[in-house]
């Protein structure tokens, strides 16, 4: 059946089963491979995208359930140049292998949109994505810097 999706501001029509996982529709039907497969059970966060502005793990979301939502992937996040989060990621030299970072950046961006100055405790609770290279100290430093900048008038 045909499913109509709104991805990164554009409407896309796809002939796909409604129970196909959003992650694989993005990657294999739409060629948006910046969103990554990590675990398939919503544990690692590598597949994080924004659904109506909320960070969601797309590997367990059936595409039929998001037909009416605004879907934003890493490709859409920086469509108009690097965002402050991405700039902070470069400044703090966060990524190592980089595979988890699309999901990490999507998760942090959604968090900062609703809470521009998260505490370390809030960050621990909200950002549960896995990074095997161990970039957490730099993620924390980058978010602290972003939070401090937002705190300024």
């Amino acid at each position, binding site marked *: 059946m045909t499913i109509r999706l709104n991805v990164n501001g554009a409407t896309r029509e796809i002939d796909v*089963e409604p129970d*196909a*996982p959003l992650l*694989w529709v993005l*990657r*294999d*039907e739409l*060629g*948006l*491979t*910046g*969103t*990554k*497969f*990590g*675990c*398939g*059970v919503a*544990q*690692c966060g*590598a597949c994080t995208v924004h659904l109506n502005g909320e960070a969601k793990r797309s590997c367990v979301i059936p595409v039929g359930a998001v037909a009416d939502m605004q879907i934003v*992937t*890493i*490709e859409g*996040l*920086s469509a108009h140049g*690097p965002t402050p989060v*991405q700039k902070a*990621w*470069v400044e703090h*030299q*966060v*990524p*190592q*292998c*980089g*595979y*988890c*970072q*699309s999901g990490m*950046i999507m998760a942090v961006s959604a968090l900062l949109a609703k809470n521009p100055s998260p505490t370390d405790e809030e*960050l*621990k*609770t909200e*950002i*549960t*994505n*896995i*990074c*095997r*290279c*161990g*970039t*957490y*100290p*730099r*993620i*924390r430093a980058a978010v602290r810097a972003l939070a401090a900048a937002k705190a300024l008038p």
Partner: protein
Amino acid sequence: MTTRRMVILGGLGAASALVVGYALWPSTRIARADAMAARAGERFVSNWIKIGRDDTVTVVIPHCDMGTGIFTSLSQMAAEELDADWNKVRAETAPADSLFANGPLGEGFILGEKDIYPNNIPAFLRGTVANSFRTIAGFMDLQVTGGSSAIRATGVFGIRIAAAAAREMLVAAAAARWNVAPETCSTRVSRVLHEASGRSFGFGELAADAARHDPSSHPRLKPKDQYTIVGKSVLRFDIPRKVDGTTAYGIDVREPGMLFAAIRISPVFGGNLRSVDAAPISGRRGIHKVIKLDDAVVVVADRFWRARDAAALLNPIFDDGVLGGVTSTTIAARRKAALDDALKSDLTVGSGADALKSQKVIEATYQVPYLAHATMEPMNATAIYRNGSLEVWSGTQDGLGSRAACAKSAGLPIEKVTFHLLPMGGGFGRRLPGFFNFLDYAVKTAMAVPGTPVKLVFTREQDMQHDFYRPNVMSRFRAALGAGGMPAVWVNDYTTDDDPNPEAHILYAIPNQAISAALVRTHVPTGPWRSVEASWHGFFIESFIDELAHRAKADPVAYRLKLLADKPRHAATLELAARKAGWGAPLAHGRGRGVAIVESFKSIVCHVADVTVAANGSVKIDRVVSAVDCGMAVNPDGMRAQIEGGILFGLGAAQYGEITIDKGAVAQANFPDYPVARLADCPDIEIHFHDSDAPLGGGGEPGVPPTAPAITNAIFAATGVRIRDLPIIKHASLIAHGATASL
């Protein structure tokens, strides 16, 4: 057959001159390199170094950058010797061709590792050579990234020498044009200058001429005090494309008409596929083919999720044979028995174990579990077999080795195989040669659908259950204390599933030592896991020395310092970490501070960990203060990132990591039952460098080994509970009891 490199390697005594001679290409090879890997306007000037008409220097690197930043650091080493403008320096991956084999890596080990001999190949390279060819020459034709070797071997013995030779060739080309003596010329920011006449040429104007000169076998290397690029923190080349989703990893390959494959491998290692009935998936959308392999069934479909969901519906029957009865318990029993009846001596110092006689013996037995690598990007490869040729794309830790492995899987000569090495989402040893099961399955899948590209992706479950695990190891210590409570005898017996482990040898000056290994092989496949042998011996040795310090009623730092009196670099690194951590300052109740120092991959790393133990026995690591002596860090911020990563990798494994065997198969399947470190686990980390004149040490791995023992020593300091068996989390009730008892 005797090859040139075997002859060269035969004369190790005269190594340094020969190494340079081997390392540099004659101009005939330059032409082949240009044909293979130079774009319009680019010329190879020496091996690994291309220069473009616009003065851009491209360092062509016989490695993959797994995220450790080696492409940037190796480019710093090249730019330094070339006097290149850092803003015009790039890096790219060398083709998977023997022209670009990394000879300097092998040479680096021959020159740099005293332990190398034909039956003692560094653990991370063992998969590169078949047992019957376990000779030094056998691992020269490779492009391995592992063993924290890129800087200390490829950089030191290869790229920096090639760059220095290229600089001399550029100078020679300029001097010839000006008809002046080369000695009157100098180089600065990608230009050759003749100051007396005020003339200069950009590197790009000289590259073609320079390439016609033969490289000097003894290029002048820049003294360290003149470095302006090496030793400075620079921004990594790869990061901008890792924050916007544009880096294309192996799993992101898209070829026209590509199909996708999912696999179900025999859960019991070594089991065979007896039968599989395709009926449950017949008529499902997009399914192309069900392929029966010796030990697996593969479903090929037009989309990955269709292949994966269909594979999950199959009920393949596998032969488990006798291995279906193996469990972690039966394996542990074999290890314990081997320590009593299968020991072979590896090292004896002084009177060895005899010195224990009539002494009060302190004994302790330690264990570590199997661990999965759990790279973020699950294993995958894309392949197409057509007209007798094979083309493969994947992220691995050895391009040339991958090509050879694919040729072997396909039964094709290597000339018929093209291999494209792509970025990978984590390696940690999992993607080293010898452990290429994902390439083998992908090649066999492609050959079953000739003419069509097919991408095989392991699910996380297949990835975790068909890894090559960090071995599970048992280690028994017996020791006796002498004058002043210092250790007089150190006896260590441990199990191994390979050669004896050099990493079991201790740093400490103990007059009598006996170290023995007992070989125990099981059907569980094992392989190198970030820091390899040091990941277990670091934990064992640094825990037991802490036990001895406690028995001697000595301070753990002071006790170690006494035993390192003849090792000033180690002592200084230990003192630096202790001072920066405020060692000796009292901690609140329920908190503890522990120390551990391990040298691995030629770098010395000392961690001081602070922990807080909760009443329920859970352990929080609050802070790790680390001191590092790697000689000097080429890119200090990059080195810091590697030590941070090593700490998190070691911390997650120490706290939670355990793969167990049940009915011959791995019991864990995904992150819910194989937890790893997350942001909430991340301590505050401080890293301090102790710079020394020592040869450059490795970066990717040395941060891991001292992590677990620094944590468990801190738990002991807080609770009096000695953790001798990882992971920590399974001892929560013991720790809780200790925390209460110490009130």
